[in-house]
């Protein structure tokens, strides 16, 4: 049940109507002749000179109705499957950053393939992170072998569902070949896809050939996919939140619709990564309060079409896991969580407007997400939780510490934070004055130290895929 809904039903209607007008009167720039033909054949209005494609409201409605409103993002072991479209909220990290903040050295370095493996191990062990997104760019690899290596090492380090960004057809093909092999065949992967793909249109209103190829490929082979617009209010979309939402809604619906034309029934998520530009100095501000509000609104817009949604929250402009990071992350994760987004991505690990990660931040954000999940679980009110009997039993002046009622409910009622410090002052001093960051550092190191094994049959897979590198 959503707790926060920034848009009224009338607001939603106006934004949806405007998105329809955008798609009917302006259109989407489709940068590929073959796809223009396909869309024309399917009934879209195509202008070959401008390469702009327009969709009538009726056509759009019919095509969107082919998209499934529920599907599952499978985990490799079947233990942590994600059931989209059922009102559950799942959180994950964010992807494809290029820099890492090393808290111990208090310095930054470029990310490596090893960081893909390590962040996957962290996500595998962090309870509140429900799936893994390929976290960073492997600077020690050539771009041609990113995807094979990224997904191999991710799948080798977590059994949770793995999602990743793709830039081209060759990349998604590498992912599919590897995942099919691991699944034991193309059909088995199609039946229970444990990988999925993120691709993006370019705001405003442009979808390039690589993206279309990825959507077509994923649709054909049953790999869940999202085509997630990332408009920046004031730069690549209107400076008004409503205007940005209308444009983003048009872009998101176009991505879903085009995928349904290419592969009817394809498992596609409505994508949303709206953010703003700080127009004082043109700094990208995805940790802004408006980012949280717009992502929540985007979820309402997706639900209008009963589409599972891939929304965003948990990014910060802060360069380190600091106070600003804590404020910005908590606010946007909370807002996007409270509207009951199916998937909230970028929710863990991110720093520097989505350009950097830190291992410690994964631990800290896991905690924030845990608290947000506690919020979502709500306050359970019934005769047992109201506790009249135990109140009567203890009576005035007693205490509840050793009561059965306490012991029966203490595990379910409370969220137990971990890197957050809850210590008596003297004990805290004796412990060396730990704080959330120092505790997170210890935990991250511990997880990585304790988990070094391969989850996949290493030799078998490496024999089949020569391009896999060591980390």
């Amino acid at each position: 049940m959503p707790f926060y809904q920034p848009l009224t039903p009338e607001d939603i209607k106006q934004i949806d109507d405007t998105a329809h007008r955008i798609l009917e009167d302006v259109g989407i720039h489709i940068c590929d002749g073959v796809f223009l033909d396909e869309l024309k054949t399917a009934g879209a209005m195509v202008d070959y000179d401008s390469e702009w494609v327009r969709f009538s409201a009726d056509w759009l409605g019919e095509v969107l109705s082919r998209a499934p409103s529920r599907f599952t993002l499978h985990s490799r072991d079947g233990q942590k499957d994600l059931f989209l479209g059922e009102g559950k909220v799942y959180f994950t990290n964010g992807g494809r950053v290029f820099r890492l903040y090393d808290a111990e050295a208090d310095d930054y370095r470029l990310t490596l393939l090893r960081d893909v493996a390590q962040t996957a191990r962290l996500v595998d062990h962090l309870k509140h992170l429900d799936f893994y997104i390929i976290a960073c760019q492997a600077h020690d690899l050539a771009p041609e072998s990113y995807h094979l290596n990224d997904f191999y090492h991710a799948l080798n380090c977590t059994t949770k569902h793995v999602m990743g960004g793709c830039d081209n057809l060759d990349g998604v093909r590498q992912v599919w070949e590897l995942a099919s092999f691991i699944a034991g065949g193309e059909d088995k992967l199609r039946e229970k896809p444990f990988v999925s793909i993120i691709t993006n249109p370019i705001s405003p209103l442009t979808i390039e050939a690589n993206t279309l190829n990825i959507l077509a490929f994923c649709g054909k082979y049953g790999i869940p996919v999202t085509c997630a617009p990332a408009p920046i209010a004031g730069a690549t979309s209107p400076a008004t939140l409503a205007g940005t939402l209308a444009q983003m809604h048009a872009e998101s619906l176009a991505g879903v619709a085009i995928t349904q034309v290419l592969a009817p029934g394809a498992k596609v998520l409505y994508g949303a990564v709206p953010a703003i530009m700080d127009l004082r100095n043109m700094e990208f501000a995805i940790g802004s309060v408006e980012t949280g509000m717009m992502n929540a609104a985007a979820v309402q817009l997706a639900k209008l079409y009963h589409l599972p949604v891939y929304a965003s929250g948990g990014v910060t402009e802060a360069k380190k896991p600091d106070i600003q990071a804590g404020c910005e992350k908590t606010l946007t994760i909370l807002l996007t969580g409270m509207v009951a987004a199916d998937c909230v991505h970028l929710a863990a690990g991110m720093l520097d407007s989505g350009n950097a990660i830190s291992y410690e931040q994964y631990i800290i954000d896991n905690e924030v997400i845990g608290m947000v999940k506690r919020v979502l679980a709500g306050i359970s009110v019934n005769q047992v939780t109201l506790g009249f009997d135990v109140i009567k039993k203890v009576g005035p002046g007693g205490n509840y510490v050793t009561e059965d009622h306490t012991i029966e409910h203490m595990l379910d009622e409370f969220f137990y934070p971990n890197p957050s410090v809850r210590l008596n002052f003297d004990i805290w001093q004796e412990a060396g004055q730990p704080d959330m960051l120092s505790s997170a550092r210890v935990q991250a190191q511990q997880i990585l130290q304790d988990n070094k094994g391969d989850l996949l049959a290493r030799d078998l897979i490496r024999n089949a895929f020569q391009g896999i590198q060591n980390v």
Partner: protein
Amino acid sequence: MSDLKALIEAVIKGDISTATAETQHAVGTGHNAQDILDKGLIAAMDEVGERFSKGQIFVPQMLRSAKTMQECMKALEPFFQEGSITSKGKVIIGTVKGDLHDIGKNLVSMMMEGAGFTMFDLGVDASPERFVQKAQEIEPDIVAMSALLSTTMPSMRLTIEALKEASLRDKVKVMIGGAPVTEKYAREIEADCYAPDAGSAVSKAKEILGIS
């Protein structure tokens, strides 16, 4: 002869239609073109720069003013002999091959144009050959490249190699930028300079050309 106050105000406001009308009016009432440029347009842009650096106006307003000045310049051009309006330098700019993201590149281009550079924009998905061809044609001072995707960054290196092969590399300065681009990468591919954002692109460009 009226003063140029109304023109200056219009440029500061970024009011293109009033500013161009005021420019015509100034010409019509006997101002010479050099005065209109120096005491009107440039004086206005100095004030804009001042207000921006104090945080009194934001980037969109500054860019609007720069655009307004350019429109006014069009009205003044007939009064200048060809080549007598000095440009800070000629710059070819483009998003590299394989990449269609252009907001960053466009901002850099607008900021540099506003600062007095003459920009030649190759748009997006610009191949090394197109950079070379344009460089042969216009003999620029700077070749500026942008990439948003880590997978398209290698096009920057290829473009620099293509400039070398065409014996153009030592005649131009190469500037690069874009979210995944770093100072280190710039050094690796032997670019002359890396600018982390649109504002610093202007100062970096001036720096590598040795102008103020």
